[in-house]
C-alpha cells in the first residue's frame, strides 16, 4: 500500500499548497499515482482518498472556483483550519496529560493519535484505573459545547433544540446540560436517550447565560411547587454518603453520634420523598410537619 500512502501525502501537500481551489483535473495532473484517464476509475480513487482525509479530521473544503460559470467545484485545505494551535506544553505537562489518558480510558476512543499530535508519548502507565463509557454523540456534542453551536436532536420521542453548555459525567452516565429552546429553561439530557445523530449548527450560535450554581439542580429542587425548607436527619452510617450527595453546604448540624441534619429546599415533593426513602429507616424528615406527614401517609398507603 506504499503507493497509496505516497499519493495521500502528496494530495494533502497539494491541497495545503493551493491558494485557489484545485479542480479534480488539476489534482489528477499534479498528484502522482492517479489513473491517467479522467474516467470513473480516477473519480472513484479520488473520492475514496478525499473520504480518507476527511475521516481522519483533515478539513478538505469543497469550494466553487472563482469566476467560473457554470460553477466548477474545487478542493483545498486551509492551513489555519488544518493546523493544531501550539499549546506550548512543558514536558511535565505533556507527561501529565499522557498519564491522564493512560489512566482514564474513554471506551472505544483511542487516545494515541491525540497524544501523538501533541508531540508523542514517553511512557504509559499500568493500564487504565478509570473507565468512562463512550456514546455515539459524545464527540460532536463536546465540539458543539466548546464552539457554542446550537444542537438539534431527538430525545425521549421529542425533537429538541438546545444550547449545549457542557457535558457532564455523573453516576456512571453522560449528560448534556443546556438550555432548551422550547421552554427556555436549563435542562439535562441523558446521552443514551438521544435517538440517532445530533445536528450541529454554526459556531457562536448562542450566548451563554449562567447556569444555576455548580451543576444542575438536585431533583427535589426541580419543580414548580412553592419552595419549602426541610430538615432531614440521616444516621451516622449513611451520613458521609448523604453529605456527598447533597453537598456539604446543606449540612445544618453534625451530631456527636455521627448523624447529620440536612437542610434542603424542596420544590418537588415526589423527588424529595424518593430521596429520603432511599435511606430506608436510616433517615427521617424532622420538619416541616407537612412534609413529614406526607412521608407517613405515603408509607401507610403501602402497608
Amino acid at each position, binding site marked *: 500500500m506504499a503507493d497509496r500512502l505516497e499519493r495521500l501525502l502528496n494530495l494533502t501537500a497539494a491541497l495545503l499548497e493551493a491558494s485557489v481551489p484545485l479542480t479534480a483535473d488539476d489534482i489528477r495532473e499534479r498528484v502522482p499515482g492517479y489513473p491517467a484517464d479522467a474516467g470513473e476509475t480516477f473519480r472513484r480513487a479520488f473520492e475514496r482518498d478525499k473520504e480518507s482525509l476527511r475521516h481522519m479530521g483533515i478539513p478538505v473544503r469543497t469550494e466553487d472556483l472563482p469566476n467560473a460559470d457554470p460553477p466548477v467545484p474545487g478542493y483545498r485545505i486551509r492551513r489555519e483550519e488544518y493546523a493544531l494551535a501550539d499549546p506550548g506544553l512543558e514536558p511535565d*505537562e*505533556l507527561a501529565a496529560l499522557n498519564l491522564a489518558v493512560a489512566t482514564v480510558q474513554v471506551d472505544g476512543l483511542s487516545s494515541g493519535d491525540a497524544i501523538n499530535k*501533541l508531540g508523542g508519548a514517553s511512557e504509559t502507565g499500568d493500564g487504565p484505573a478509570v473507565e468512562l463509557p463512550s456514546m455515539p454523540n459524545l464527540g460532536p456534542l463536546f465540539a458543539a459545547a466548546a464552539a457554542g453551536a446550537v444542537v438539534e436532536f431527538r430525545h425521549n420521542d421529542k425533537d429538541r433544540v438546545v444550547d449545549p453548555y457542557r457535558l*457532564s459525567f455523573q453516576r456512571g452516565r453522560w449528560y448534556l446540560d443546556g438550555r432548551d429552546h422550547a421552554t427556555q429553561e436549563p435542562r439535562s439530557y441523558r446521552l443514551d436517550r438521544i435517538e440517532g445523530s445530533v445536528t450541529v449548527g454554526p459556531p457562536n450560535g448562542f450566548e451563554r447565560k449562567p447556569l444555576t450554581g455548580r451543576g444542575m439542580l438536585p431533583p427535589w429542587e426541580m419543580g414548580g411547587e412553592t419552595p419549602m425548607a426541610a430538615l432531614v436527619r440521616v444516621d451516622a452510617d449513611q451520613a458521609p454518603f448523604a453529605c456527598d*450527595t447533597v453537598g456539604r453546604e446543606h449540612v445544618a448540624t453534625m451530631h456527636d453520634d455521627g448523624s447529620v441534619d440536612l437542610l434542603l429546599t424542596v420544590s418537588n415533593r415526589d423527588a424529595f420523598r424518593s430521596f429520603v426513602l432511599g435511606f430506608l429507616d436510616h433517615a427521617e424528615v424532622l*420538619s416541616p410537619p407537612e412534609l413529614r406527614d406526607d412521608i407517613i401517609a405515603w408509607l401507610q398507603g403501602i402497608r
Partner: protein
Amino acid sequence: MARTSADDRLRRLLAIVPWVAANDGPKIADVCARFGVSQAELLADVDLLQYCGVYPFTADVLMEVRLEEDRIWIQYADWFNRPLRLTPEEALTLVASGRALLAVPGNDPEGPLARGLAKLADALQVDADEAIEVHLGNVPAGMLDTLRGAIAASRQVELDYYTYGRDARTRRVIDPWDVYAAEGEWYVQAFCHAAQAERLFRLDRIRSVSVLDRTFDPPATLPPRRVFSAEEADARIVLDLEPWARWVAGQYPMEAVEELGEGRLRVTMKIAEQAWLERLLLRLGPGATVVEGDTSVAPAAAERVLRRYTGTVAAS
C-alpha cells in the same frame, strides 16, 4: 504484526514529521519510543517522504530526509510543520481524561496536569471548566492512596464496610488486588477472607480502612474488572408500573418489558438484594404492583420505616 493501513500510517506520519522537523536531529530510537512505532516501520515511512512534495516535484519542492548514524532530520516539510488539529473525539478524550484524573482525590489542583489541561483548553478554544464536568464517584480523601499503597506493598487491609444490598455493616479482612473507577463508582477488587472468595467493594461504602502488617501473594493475573450488577442474582420480580413510574424501565436492566396499554408497563427484573428492592418499592409506592414475587417486601419495609416516625417528636 498486523499490517497497518495507509490511513493509519498517514495519520502517524502527520504527527511524526512536524515533531522531527522541529527538533534538531533526534535519535531514531527516541522517535520510535515517543510515537510507539518500530524502527522498521519508521524507516519505511520516512523513506517514502523523499518522494513527496508538490508539483512539479523538482528537488526544491520535495521534502528531504537525512539519516546519519542513529539520528534523523526532516527538512523542507513546510506543509506539515504543524500537527493536524485534534478531532472532536480526540479533544474530548484528552480533556475528559484530564478532568477525570484531576477529580481524583489527592491530585494537585495546580500541578502539571492542571496547567497542561488549561493550556490545551486555550489552544482548543474550549473553556475546560465550562465544557465538561466529570464525577467519578465519591471517595473519602486519603482512602484511595491508602488502598493503592496497600496494593503496591501486597499488604492485607481490614475494612469496616456497609453492604448496601443487605443494609448491614461488617468488618472484614481483604487482600486488595486492584482499585479502579467504572460506571461512576470506585471499586476495590479483593480476596475476602470472610467469604473465602473474590469480592468487589465500593469505596464510598467503606467506613474505615486500616492497613495490616500481614502480606499476601497477589494473583498472577487479575480477574476481569467488573461493576456491581444484578446479573448474578437468581431472584426475579414482575411489576406492573403506572404511567408515572415507567422511568424504572429505562433506569435498570430489564429481562422483559411489556406494554399493558394506557401507558402502563409490566416489567420483569432480576433482584440482587432485598434492601435494593425495598428502596425501589418504597419509592414507587402505589406506582408499582408486585405481580410475581414476594408481596410482603414492601409492606414490611414500610412498617419498619414508619416505626421511626411514630414516637419521635418533630424538631420544630
